[in-house]
C-alpha cells in the first residue's frame, strides 16, 4: 500500500499545487480524477521522484519515496503525460536502453522481455523502425512498454490514453488491469471518468490541490442512490431550474433541454423522472459543490 501524508507543493510562481494531501492507495488500480490544473500531474511527478515536495511524506513497502529516490525508481514504472524519445534510435534500441537502465543486464532475459513487451503493445512489426517516424499512438504505446519494464510495483500513468484510438485504449486498459495484479499499485491519473469507473477499484477526486474524496466507484454511485433525476424541458425553463436545483448536465435537443440533476429527498418536479446514477454524476456533483 502507498501511504501519502500531508504532501504540499507550492511552485516558485506562488501557485499552491498541493495542499497537505493525505491518501492511502491500496494495491490494484487506483484512479485519480480531477479537472485540469487540479494538481494531478504535480502529485504524479512527486511520486515519480521528479519533483521535490515542500513537506509531507510518501511511503510504500517500507521505502520513503521522497528520501530514497533510488529505491523508489527501482520499483517504479512511469508514463508521463508528455514525453519524448530519441528520434534517431529504433524502438528496439530504445526499449533495450531503458531495460539496461532499469538494471536488466542479462541479455537473454532482456531480449525475452523486450520481445514480450513489443507483442503486448502491438509494436512487434515496428521494432526496427526509428522512433522519429512513429505516429503519436505508436509513441504512446512505446511509452507504455517502457513503463512496464522489470515488474514495477508502483506504476504511475498520467493521462495514458491520450492519442490512442479506441481499440488501443481498450488494449491498454487490459494491460494495466493485468499488471496491477495483486501486489502492484497502479495510479491512473485522468479526467476521463469512464476510464476510472471501468478499471479502478478505488479512486480519489482532487481539485485545487486538495483531495475532495477517496472512495470506491461503487460507494460513490451508491451515495447518489435515488437522488439523480432526468427531464426534458423547454429551453426557457433551464435558467430558472438551474437557479433552484443542482443541475449536473444539460443537453440541447431540438429546442428542448435534457437536464440531469441531483435532488436528495424529494422529486424536484413533475416533469422529472428518476435516473440510474453513474460515476460522472458523483464527480460533477463533488466538483461543482465545493
Amino acid at each position, binding site marked *: 500500500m502507498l501511504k501519502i501524508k500531508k504532501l504540499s507543493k507550492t511552485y516558485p510562481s506562488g501557485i499552491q499545487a498541493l495542499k497537505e494531501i493525505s491518501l492511502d492507495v491500496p494495491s490494484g488500480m487506483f484512479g485519480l480524477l480531477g479537472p485540469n490544473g487540479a494538481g494531478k500531474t504535480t502529485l504524479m511527478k512527486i511520486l*515519480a521522484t521528479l519533483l521535490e515536495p515542500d513537506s509531507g511524506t510518501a511511503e510504500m513497502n517500507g521505502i520513503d519515496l521522497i*528520501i530514497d*529516490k533510488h529505491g523508489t525508481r527501482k520499483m517504479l514504472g512511469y508514463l508521463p503525460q508528455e514525453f519524448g524519445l530519441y*528520434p534517431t534510435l529504433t524502438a528496439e534500441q530504445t526499449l533495450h*536502453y531503458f531495460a539496461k537502465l532499469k538494471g536488466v543486464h542479462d541479455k537473454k*532475459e532482456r531480449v525475452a522481455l523486450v520481445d514480450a513487451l513489443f507483442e503486448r503493445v502491438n509494436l512487434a512489426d515496428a521494432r526496427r523502425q526509428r522512433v522519429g517516424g512513429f505516429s503519436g499512438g505508436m509513441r504512446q504505446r512505446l511509452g507504455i512498454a517502457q513503463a512496464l519494464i522489470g515488474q514495477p510495483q508502483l506504476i504511475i500513468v498520467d493521462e495514458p490514453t491520450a492519442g490512442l*484510438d479506441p*481499440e488501443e485504449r481498450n488494449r491498454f486498459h487490459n494491460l494495466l488491469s493485468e499488471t496491477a495484479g495483486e501486489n502492484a499499485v497502479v495510479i491512473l491519473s485522468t479526467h476521463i471518468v469512464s476510464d476510472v469507473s471501468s478499471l479502478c477499484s478505488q479512486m480519489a477526486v482532487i481539485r485545487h490541490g486538495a483531495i475532495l474524496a477517496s472512495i470506491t466507484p461503487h460507494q460513490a454511485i451508491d451515495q447518489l442512490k435515488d437522488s439523480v433525476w432526468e427531464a426534458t424541458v423547454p429551453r426557457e425553463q433551464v435558467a430558472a431550474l438551474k437557479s433552484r436545483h443542482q443541475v449536473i448536465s444539460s443537453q440541447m435537443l431540438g429546442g428542448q433541454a435534457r437536464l440531469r440533476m441531483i435532488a436528495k429527498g424529494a422529486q424536484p418536479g413533475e416533469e422529472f423522472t428518476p435516473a440510474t446514477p453513474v460515476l460522472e454524476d458523483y464527480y460533477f456533483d463533488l466538483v461543482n459543490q465545493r
Partner: protein
Amino acid sequence: MIRFTALAYALTSDTRYANMINPFQTRFAAIFQNEVRLNSRRVAPYVLMLFSVFNAVLWSAGLDATYYGQEVLAKYGRLWASNSDYYITHNFSGYALGIFGLPIFAALIMAEPVRRDFRLEIDALIFSKPVSRAQYLLGKFFGSFLVLVCCQASFAATLIMFQVFPTSQMFVLPFRLLPYFKHFMMIVVITYVLFAAVYFTVGTLTRNPKIVYGLAIAYYPLVFFYGFFFLKGLPPRWRVLLSPLMLREVQIQTWGRSPEWVDQLVVTYTPIMFANRALVILAAAVCLTVVCLRFRIAEPPAKPENFSCLNLSAGSEVLYYDPPILQPTRGSTASEIRSVRVEKAEAKATAVPSVSSSNTGLRANLAKLAAALGVEFRLLRAERSLVVITPLAVFVPNLELAFYRVVPEGSYSATYATGTARTLLSFLIGMTVFYVVESMQRDREVRIEPVLWAKPTPNSVLLLSKFLATFLLMLSVITIAGLTAIAIQLLRGHAPVELYPYLVTYSVILIPGIVFTAGVSILLNVVLREKYLTYVVIVGVGAGLSYLYSQGYNLWLYNPALYQLWTYSDLTGAGGGRILTQRIYWLALSCLCLALAHLGFRRKSAKGFRVNGRLGSTGWALVVTVLSLVVAVVTGSMIK
C-alpha cells in the same frame, strides 16, 4: 492572459478611430509594445546589458592595465581623457565591431521574434485578426530593435557615468553628454540597424534561428574578408562609402601622440560619411521590404514524416464497441471486471516474463554507464555536423605541414606533432563545447527527461556518459589527425617517424585541454540550464580570455590551453615538471567542475550524504569536490 487580451483587443479594434484618439493604440503599436514586453522576460537582453557594462568598465577603468596604456602612462604621466571625442569614438567603434560578441547577442535578440510566434503556436490567433503583414513585421522588428538599442545604451551610460565617478588612474575632461549621444547614434545604432534587419530577415524568412546564429558567427571572418579583399583595393571615397561599420574612417592614428594632443581632437563626420550612414539605413530598409514582400503565414514545407504502414490493432474492418459488462454495474467487483478484461484479451497476448535486475554496486552502474555511452554514441553518429567538422579538424591543422617547408625542431616528428597540436586544440575546444552542450540539452529538447529520470540510474551515469562520449569522440579526432600527420610525414619523406613526440604532445597538451573544456561545459549547462545562454557565456568567456592572452595576460593559472606557454623542448626537457604540474592543476579543476555539476544537477537522487549507512552519491561528489580543490590549490600554488 491579460496582456494577450490587450494585444488581441488592439489588433481587432478599428484603427480609424484608434488612430484619431491615440497613436499608441494602433495595431503596429500593440505588436511593438508586446514585443518589448516579451523581450523584457528573456535572459539574453540582460546578459547583453551586463556584458556591455562590463566592457565599458574594462575599457574605461582598465585602460592603464593594457600595454599601450602603460606605455602612455610611463611616458606622459597620465592617460588620454576618457571622455575626449577621440576616446568616445574609439570605444564605440570597438564595441560596434563586436570584440565581446555584440553581433552574436544581436542575433539572439533579432532571430526569434516571428519564429517564436510559430513555435508557441500563437500565429494562428494573431493572423486571424485584421493585422497587415507590414504592421506585424515592422512591429516585431522595431520592438526587438528598441530592446537591442536599450541594451547597447547601457554601454554608453556606463561610459557617461565614469565622467562623474572616475577611478584614480583616469583623466576626465569637463562633463559632456552630446558627443556620447552623437557618436553612439552614428557608430553603434545605425550600424546595428543593418545587422538587425539582416538577422531579422533571415530569421523570419527561414524560421530557423540556427541559420541566423551561424550568420552571426560568420560575421567575424566576413568582416575581415570584406575589409581585406574588397575595401582595401578601393579608392578612399568608395572605401568610406561602402564600409558598413565606418570604423577606420572615424578613427585617427594616435600612435606616439601625447594625451594633450589626443584630448583636443574633435571627431567630425564628412558628407561622405553621412552618405555611408544613409546607405546603411537604406540597406536595412531594403531588407525589411524584402521580408514584408516575401513573408508567408503558412509553415515552410517540411520533410514529410515517415509514417510506418502498420496494421494497427485488429484492422480497420473491426468496429469498436465498449463491452457493456465493463461498465460498473452494481454488484460486480473490480476483480470481476478485471477477470472479464483478461478473458477478452487477445489470444496472442504474450505474458511479460519476470526478469532479474541489479541496480546497486559498481558492476551494475558500469553496465548502465556502458549502455548510456552506447546510446550517446548512436546519437552522436546521427549528428550531421560531424560530417563537416571532423574532416576540417583533421585536415586544417595538417595543411601547413602538407604544403609548406618544414624546418625540423629537434626532429621532424616533434615538429609535425607540435604543428598539428596548436591548431587542432582550437578545433577540439570548439567541438567539445558544441557536443557537450548539445548532448546535455538533448534530453530536455526531445522531452525524454521524465522517462529517463524515473529510471534507477545514478546521476553520475547520466553526466559521465555525456562527458565520456564527447571525450572519446575528441580522442578519435586526435588519433585520426595524428595518423594523417604521420601519413604526410611519410609521404614527404621526413623519416624517421617517431611515435613518442606525438604521444607526449597530444597527451600533455590536447587531452587535459579537452577534459577541462568538457568539464566546465557540463558545469555551465547544469548551472545555466538554457542552451543558448550557455553558448553565449562560453563564447563570451572564451573571447574575453583570448583578448587577455593577446594583450599578454596569459598566466598559467587561467590558461588551460597553455596558449603561448609551451614548446616541444619544454615537454621533454627541464620544463616538463612545470608543465606537468600545470596539467594536474587543470585536471583537478576538471574533476571539481564535474563534481560540482553532480551536486547541482537538477535531478535529485538522495537526501543527505549517507544512504543506508554508506556514502551516497552526494557524499561521494562532495569528497571529490574537496579532493579536487585541495589538489588544485596545491598544484596552483606550485606554479610559478
